[in-house]
């Protein structure tokens, strides 16, 4: 049975609007969990749009993968964001002017493509997309396929090397010099500490720490409860941007 074109159109607009609305909600909520799951909802709506464009496999695989990936995004957001549940209000938007300009530019560019490009006037001839994909992977694109495997392996090794704090030889901090906080200082010149400060050992985390103190300090210093003004919010927003 082919579905009624009107129903498909209605569904297309509904899910299209929903994907934009949920995408917008990502920036309107204080809670990192909600933000992650709104983003997931936005992707799911895009997945349904793919389905409506007769791309069953791509749609389902997008949904399947986004579920796992947004769960991971949620845990990383919760790990590294201050105030992850939004118990105190905050602003997820920062650098308003640049954001607005970038948004408008992107919209104009994409809309321009939409207006200028020559689209087929009817949907693609129905064909088993999954099979076509498989044949492509086993045929001309075999090298791409295997290269992708190698790239994934490189990604795995890099991720482990960068993120893991220990290895087969024990703790990564043992016998290592803490990277200097001051860019002018050379690591080798740093005084040898009997027990390297693990906390400082993580350059990335030091950045996090710095911004955290900034956020807290602003409040604690009582720089005016009116410190929750535009600039204050913007500053915190930037912290979030860097955190992610």
């Amino acid at each position, binding site marked *: 049975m082919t579905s009624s074109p009107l129903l498909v159109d209605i569904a297309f607009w509904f899910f299209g609007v929903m994907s934009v609305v949920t995408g917008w909600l990502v920036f309107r909520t204080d809670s990192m969990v909600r933000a992650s799951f709104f983003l997931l909802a936005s992707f799911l709506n895009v997945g349904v749009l793919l389905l409506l464009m007769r791309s069953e496999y791509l749609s389902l695989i997008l949904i399947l993968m986004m579920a796992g990936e947004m769960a991971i995004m949620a845990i990383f957001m919760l*790990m*590294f964001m*201050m*105030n992850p549940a939004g*118990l*105190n*209000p*905050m602003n997820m938007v920062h650098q308003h002017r640049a954001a607005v300009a970038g948004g408008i530019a992107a919209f104009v560019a994409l809309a321009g493509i939409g207006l200028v490009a020559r689209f087929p006037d009817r949907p693609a001839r129905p064909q088993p997309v999954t099979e076509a994909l498989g044949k492509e992977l086993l045929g001309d694109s075999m090298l791409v396929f295997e290269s992708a495997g190698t790239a994934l392996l490189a990604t795995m090794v890099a991720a482990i090397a960068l993120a893991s*704090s*220990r290895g087969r030889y024990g703790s990564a*901090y043992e016998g290592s010099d803490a990277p200097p906080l001051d860019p002018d200082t050379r690591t080798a010149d740093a005084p040898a500490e009997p027990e390297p400060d*693990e*906390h400082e*050992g*993580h350059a990335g*985390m030091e950045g996090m*720490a710095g911004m*955290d103190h900034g*956020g*807290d300090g*602003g*409040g*604690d210093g*009582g720089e005016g*409860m*009116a*410190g*929750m003004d535009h600039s204050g919010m913007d500053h*915190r927003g930037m*912290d979030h941007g860097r955190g992610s």
Partner: protein
Amino acid sequence: MVVSRGRPGGPLARLAAGAEVPVFVARGLGAGDTEARLLGTSAVRVVASPRQATVLVVAGHVPPGMAEPLARVHDQIPPPRVTVWRTGAGAGALDAIRAAWPQATVVGPGDDVAATVVHAYREVLLGRRPTEQPRLADVEPAEWRGVGPYGQGGSGMTGGVPYGRPMAGRADDLRDGLSLDVVRVRMGPFLPAFPTGLVLAVTFAGDVVHAVEVDDLLTPGDGGLGAPLPDDAADSRGDPAARPVRIDGLERARCRHHLRWLARLLRLYGLEALGRRVALMAAAPVPEDIAHLRNLHRRLERAWVLGRVTAGVGVVTGDAAAQWGGVTARAAGLAVDARSGSPAYQALGFAPVTHEAGDGRDRWRQRLAEATQALELAGRAGDATVDDDHIEPAGQPAPADLAGALGTALTGQEWGDALATVASIDPVVHPGAGADRPARAEAAA
């Protein structure tokens, strides 16, 4: 309207009155065999959180420090709720509870607590008895509303007391150097897997125990309620008139004690039904149970993979094990046992059972082996007796420095492992957390 049909006495509630009774057990000092009796009753389901319970069963003596936590646990049970308090018969204990908790049903050590629980549950669901009102006053934890310009709790991103509580702060991590938030939560005294009366202030870094302190809520004083139940594991020491003590009674009590411990441990590992079987066995072990226990041991090792999941968890060996003494030391290969020096025990061919690894697995192996050995000794003992100096307590005595011992054992462990460690050691906690062991601490075994 569905809402009215769901009220006590309505059709739904009448149907629900036949359900297995969800019970939350709050063990006070000297809880005796209350929990094992409930675990061994098929009409009752012992649950892990008061939110899922309808009946709160309080067992034994609740010192003043634990009164407020008890009231809070009571309030956390959703209505309809009802309380059954099982107490020892000491000095007007029943009347004191009836005066302080007029809504509760109070039973003595001789009453059938499971039947009382089922009856009370049916009464409240059939609308013949009112659901209990909250015991604590309705007071918000802290004032917070309208502090900031957005109506938030405090200042900045993480400051202030939004919704009445501050947010967690950061600390350097013990394990991987990522300094994220740490959360200090006081666990206990009524956490199901915890030893009676233990309160641990656990600082969590994620799900890992960052630091732990022991809080003492057990100080005796005015306002305590209930009396300890006669605890068969400690019977032999409690009664000075019964000197010297008969070995068979002593060893049967030891077997009961270890089996009750095992029933609770099995529940912790999700084996509720098997825990029920062990609790039934613990009620009155007979010599024929020796074969059952051996069989149980084999099955726990293999089919139920309890050996696999407990191996290497909470290792306590060497000096640390010596500091604990008792079962924990023997599970680590130290043959410390007061019974070794007793001629009466030597005549029975007693030699202390020991295990080597001192981990969670060897601790349950140890307890199970001691339970089996106790039954064998009881069968052989005849009317042999033993003097006070050579009585080995069944329970794990708390070391002088309980906080330090637990700190060493738990710090850096994942919470599930940490809890399994505490539950498998199961120390007898007493006021002052272990300066000296007063006699009444044994009664709380």
